[in-house]
């Protein structure tokens, strides 16, 4: 049925794609150990053989001269990402649960319209939002503060959380809710005790999307803060002047990806266990 060449074909394709995916990381890795002269000498790949590696790039992201300090921004990014993701997941899964389990009708507005309202927030070009957000946060005295950024980030993440969780909850039999209620749980307890514990895969996927979008948000964090709160992407972008130090930029890029790679490992573990079944439908 399958030709004997199939495995060869399969591994070739996988390997090609893997090279494409890993290429930029490899390039960033090797560039992060270069200095100006090594960069200007044209593209080289192998340290020692082709260029003399230095640690300048890496030193520069930890407060070295001509660099930045990524530690504080890292902590800020972590706090904002975790807080905003948690709030988005909480509010998002509550709303998604309602949209999955109850029928809403308000004039011509039905459940699917409400879901669309959530998702459609992602269509808004960020440019539209940023100036009004500025005035909104100023009004609340929340400019340049972590709570301010958390609120804004929630607006970005909530649609994602709702989108993932509605689909996920739709895959959980309603009878479980009913049974929990019959077993004496009021609706909120039903949600917390019977549905949420069975939603871990869905929550993980949603959390991953939230973390990715929250962690990597540059646009809003950049424009709604002044000096107090710097997030990691902001810190990295601060390197983007007319003389871009490729080496520092590369080191910073790799540093910023690291925590999310751990997240990818976790998601993959759930995938392998088959626990994500029904997480995305």
């Amino acid at each position, binding site marked *: 049925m399958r030709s004997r060449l199939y495995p060869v074909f399969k591994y070739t394709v996988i390997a090609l794609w893997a090279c494409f995916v890993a290429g930029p990381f490899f390039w960033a890795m090797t560039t992060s150990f270069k200095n100006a002269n090594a960069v200007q000498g044209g593209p080289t790949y192998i340290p020692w053989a082709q260029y003399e590696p230095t640690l300048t790039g890496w030193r520069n992201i930890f407060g070295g001269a001509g660099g930045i300090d990524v530690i504080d921004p890292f902590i800020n990014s972590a706090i904002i990402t975790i807080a905003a993701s948690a709030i988005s997941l909480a509010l998002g899964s509550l709303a998604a649960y309602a949209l999955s389990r109850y029928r809403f009708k308000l004039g011509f507005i039905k459940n699917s319209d409400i879901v669309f309202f959530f998702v459609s927030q992602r269509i808004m070009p960020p440019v539209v939002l940023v100036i009004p957000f500025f005035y909104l946060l100023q009004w609340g005295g929340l400019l340049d503060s972590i709570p301010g950024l958390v609120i804004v980030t929630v607006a970005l993440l909530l649609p994602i959380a709702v989108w993932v969780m509605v689909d996920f909850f739709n895959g959980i*039999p309603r*009878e*479980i809710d*009913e*049974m*929990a*209620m*019959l*077993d*004496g*749980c*009021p609706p909120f*307890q*039903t949600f917390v*005790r*019977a549905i949420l*514990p*069975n939603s871990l895969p869905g929550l993980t996927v949603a959390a991953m999307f939230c973390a990715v979008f929250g962690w990597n948000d540059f646009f809003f964090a950049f424009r709604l803060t002044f000096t107090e709160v710097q997030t990691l992407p902001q810190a990295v972008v601060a390197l983007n002047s007319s003389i871009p130090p490729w080496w520092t930029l590369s080191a910073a890029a790799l540093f910023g990806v690291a925590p999310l790679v751990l997240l990818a490992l976790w998601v993959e573990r759930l995938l392998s266990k088959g626990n994500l079944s029904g997480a995305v439908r």
Partner: protein
Amino acid sequence: MNLSATDLSLTVDGVDHLKNVTATFPPGRLHTVIGRTMAGKTTLLRALAGLQKVDSGSLTLAGSDFLKTPVWRRDTAMVYQQFINYPHLNVFDNVAFPLKRAGLSRHEIQRRVRQSLASVGLADFEKRKPSQLSGGQQQRVAMARALARGTGILLLDEPLANLDYKLREQLRDEFKALFSDRGDTIVIYTTTEPAEAMMLGDVVLVMHEGRIIQTGTPQEVFERPATTTVASIINDPPMNIFGGRTEGGQVTVAGFQATHVSAHLTDLPDGAYQFGLRATDVSLASSGVEAEVTFVEISGSETFVHVVVGETPFVVQIEGIHDVALGDLVKLQLRPDRLFAFDEQGTLVRTPSYDLASVERR
């Protein structure tokens, strides 16, 4: 503490799911609701549990309005046709779940869970997750959870429907024992299986197209099916129903004349009727009415032969395995003394004197 439903009605998209359902469920009795698929049985249970809102009608428990009571305060347990358990909890915690909600002490919870699991024969499976159990075991867990709480109302929605035949028989027997000492519990059990309804029920309610069309003890319902519909629902295979006439004490059915008319039909006024005859009361013989075989089912030790006489279909149930082939021409013997007579609207007018003891319990 009677649970009383009055005129419960529910229409969805023009289809009646419940139509003026009025019934009283006294405690300490096991009620079986029998009806075909989509007859409204599940809807009725869900309405009683509070999971389904009704359009109109009232529901009271011990005289107080039960419709206003939210689901989680109805002190009701339900076992579903699908094997529904909490996937994230192990067997022990599944059974303990409602007990914890009820705020029982840990000790008491443990005692009741163990007892309940033992009663369904799952004492050794406490630590398993539902997904690691077979279908029958999963349903036992669901049963154990429903029983452990000792709720005032216990609803079972075709709990055996999704099990294979062997398990079904086994669990049915176990249920009989489990329900025998439920004290003041109101138990309502729905099924499509006449035998299950008859065997388990103290009271049988027959549902059809959203209505309760007959209520009575199994014997009453069996002996005196109020209509042709009931007769068809409570018999498996469904009772053979066919048109006929009586004229001067002579009964003509399906193109042949009864040779001798049983006493219970002699006083029928002349006219057109519908007659019913259980499949067990028809047999194949060397002489009789000519019929053509359309379908043969062999189930266990019995053979069901579907035939047509002219246009009228019959099912014949005969013991043992018989070599009858499709298209064979056979001869039927009917037992006139077992004929039920219904008027043209389908209402029972004469019933044979029946010896219930002679009906085999399947």
